[in-house]
């Protein structure tokens, strides 16, 4: 059915696939902003955006529920950001001022390349992950690229040549760097485990891989230990990763970087129109990728339930021989999990107050880092004992 596609040169296929992923990613990132407002409204016991509608569409009967969902508000906001005058204040450093939002978006969208988002079964019944590039460095690439996004905030704050953005960017540079450490340390036990004692019938050639698809494969094995998600096996790692994720994506309660109560809008103060919205699309893309990584590492990826893999699920419902259906179901399950995580992010944001900047740093260095080191050591010893 898709033979013609596989006859195309590789670079065209990759280009098309990359484009397709971004075309899905970008609107989801934008839709998250509406989800944020709707969930905020839900938490706060109010309707949220529910009035906007395009004049012509108002004539179509039964479209009211889309209006109530705020879908047209999203379109109107998006349109506004694009068409509004993109003012560049006179006192800014123009080059970096314009470069900052671009630098914010690039890493946010690039990390998707190494994140698998679904799987299908080939003719031999083998699970093939759907991703743009199944590289060995997998998670390292995600960390390496997404940590670049701090430059966007630093540049934005510095280029704005104004005090509140400057304070925000100073906070950002300290906060984002601090939490990267515990984040990286918290995922190490996962990879020690996948390369360690209970690795099952994995071929030795696959050892030493940080690929995220491998981690999901590992959670899809048979048996009690094989089908266990890492979230249950390593709850502390998952917790540290989650907390660091909140801090890395600048979400409440760690959003000291853009805490509007004291820093107005921080690094976004001098920005307007499309450039401003790019920062927020980047933030939501980071959240999406972060949640995706969390779900891959600790939440079983595209497997519907612990001990029930996608392959079992497909065989049970009898669509295992249809790669397209399996792929879509796999992507659907995974996307559902990721969006549940996003919901969790938003739920937390609208429930909790915000930490003070020095408290954020204290939590990062004094609590989370020792905890993640202890966690790592505990698992190293445990895995060493099991391997013996």
């Amino acid at each position, binding site marked *: 059915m898709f033979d013609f596609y596989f006859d195309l040169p590789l670079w065209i296929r990759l280009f098309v696939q990359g484009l397709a992923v971004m075309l899905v990613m970008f609107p989801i990132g934008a839709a998250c902003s509406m989800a944020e407002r709707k969930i*905020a409204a839900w*938490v*706060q*016991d*109010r309707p949220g955006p529910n009035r906007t509608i395009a004049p012509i569409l108002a004539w179509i009967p039964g479209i009211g529920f889309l209006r109530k969902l705020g879908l047209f508000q999203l379109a109107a906001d998006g349109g506004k950001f694009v068409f509004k005058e993109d003012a560049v204040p006179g006192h800014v450093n123009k080059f970096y001022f314009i470069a900052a939002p671009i630098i914010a978006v690039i890493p946010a969208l690039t990390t998707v390349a190494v994140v698998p988002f679904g799987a299908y079964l080939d003719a031999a019944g083998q699970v093939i992950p759907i991703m743009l590039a199944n590289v060995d460095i997998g998670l390292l690439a995600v960390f390496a690229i997404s940590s670049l996004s701090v430059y966007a905030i630093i540049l934005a704050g510095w280029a704005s040549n104004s*005090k*509140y953005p400057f*304070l925000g960017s100073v906070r950002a540079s300290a906060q984002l760097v601090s939490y990267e450490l515990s984040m990286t340390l918290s995922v190490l036990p996962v990879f020690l485990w996948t390369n360690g004692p209970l690795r099952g019938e994995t071929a030795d050639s696959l050892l030493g891989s940080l690929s995220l698809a491998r981690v999901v494969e590992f959670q899809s094995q048979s048996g009690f230990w094989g089908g266990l998600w890492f979230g249950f096996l390593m709850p502390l790692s998952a917790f540290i990763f989650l907390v660091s994720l909140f801090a890395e994506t600048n979400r*409440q*309660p760690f*959003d*000291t970087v853009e*805490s*509007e*109560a*004291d*820093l*107005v809008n921080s690094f976004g103060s001098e920005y307007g129109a499309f450039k401003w919205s790019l920062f927020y699309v980047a933030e939501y893309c980071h959240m999406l990728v972060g949640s995706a990584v969390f779900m891959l590492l600790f939440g079983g990826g595209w497997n519907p339930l612990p001990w029930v893999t996608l392959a079992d699920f497909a065989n049970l419902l009898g669509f295992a021989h249809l790669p397209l259906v399996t792929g879509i179901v796999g992507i659907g399950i995974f996307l559902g999990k990721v969006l549940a995580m996003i919901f969790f992010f938003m739920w937390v944001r*609208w*429930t*909790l*107050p*915000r*930490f*003070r*900047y*020095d*408290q954020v740093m204290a939590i990062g260095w004094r609590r989370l880092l020792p905890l993640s080191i202890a966690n790592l050591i505990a698992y190293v010893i445990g895995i060493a004992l099991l391997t013996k």
Partner: protein
Amino acid sequence: MATEYAFPDNAAKTADASQEFQTEKMSVAMGPSHPSTHGVLRLNLDLDGEIVTKCDPVLGYLHRGDEKIAENMTYNQFVPYTDRLDYLAPLANNVAYAIAVEKLANLEVPARCQAIRVICCELARISSHLLGLGAFAMDVGAWTVFMYQFTEREKLYKLFEELTGARFTTSYTRIGGVSRDMPEGWTDRVLAFCDQFLPILDEMLEMLTRNKIFTDRTVDVGIITKAEAIAYGLTGPNARGSGVTVDLRKDRPYSGYEQYEFDVPVGTKGDCYDRYLCRGEEMKQSVRIVRQAIKNMPAGDYYAKDAVRIFAPPKAKVLTSMEELINNFMIVTEGPLMPAGEVYFEAENPKGALGFFVISKGGGVPWRMKIRSPSFCNLSILPKVCQNNLLSDVVAILGSLDFVMGECDR
């Protein structure tokens, strides 16, 4: 005493000592339009990194000259201006002003009028404290409390509208009474509000009181000691948060407050958290007072009938009786007839003691009026309490002091 932070080596100090690089303090203008200065307060801050080394409040952005305006209009005409002092509790301002002028005229209003005024004051206190609480929560990042309390304030505004005809600028009192009696069934609706309000208030407070993040942000932040609170003339919940047992409703009861049973919550430490707790408890006490006032609502007139030359007669009589028509004409054109003299009256408003000092040379217009606004006095401690705190703490302190610039600048 400001909080001392145990930063082992303040970056600037180390740098100065070693002469490695020069650092300088950054001066930041916080306000007059800043999300957490609640209005048009401006703070000129000197920052050493994130630590505030100097805080210099600049007031007057909302100055309208209310005191001067008062000299150019009759006593009744000034009532709408009192709405705009503490615009979160206009009813309480109306009452305080009316009682001040009545004290000048040596006028005693009927018990029913007093009870209505007490209900007004306490509902206004709930309304003001709700917003204070919500704004404080928002300043430390908890948006949802802000939205929850607005739902409750909306219900209060509906009650105010029913009572006074206006949601916001109520202008309810007149010298010698109130503008109209309570509508039929209004007290029942107030009671219904009180019944459903307490669980919701508890829910709101639950989101904050034991919240680790909230306590981290507020406990031991912005401590005002008892001595300082007295020295700086703090009043209201801010003084009570510091452990000063001052409440004019108890100390110098007015408008029949002596008949009601209520407790005055007092803090121990004087930090932001204590001030928050005081406000939360005061709302519960206000509900208690409202319930008592409604339960024991006396029958009778809602205005002083004997104050012929002060309170304008009812419209029906004006249209039918010569005497009343002349009285009405005189009160409208010349103002209520007041004796010459001086009077100072302070009422326990939501923000603190709101005082009116009126000098009259007789006639219907004050010769001089001075307004002692609690927000102004409460803000005077700002330079002291903000010093050596972090920038984010300044926001929390501002929120916990709960000021209104309309009253502060007058």
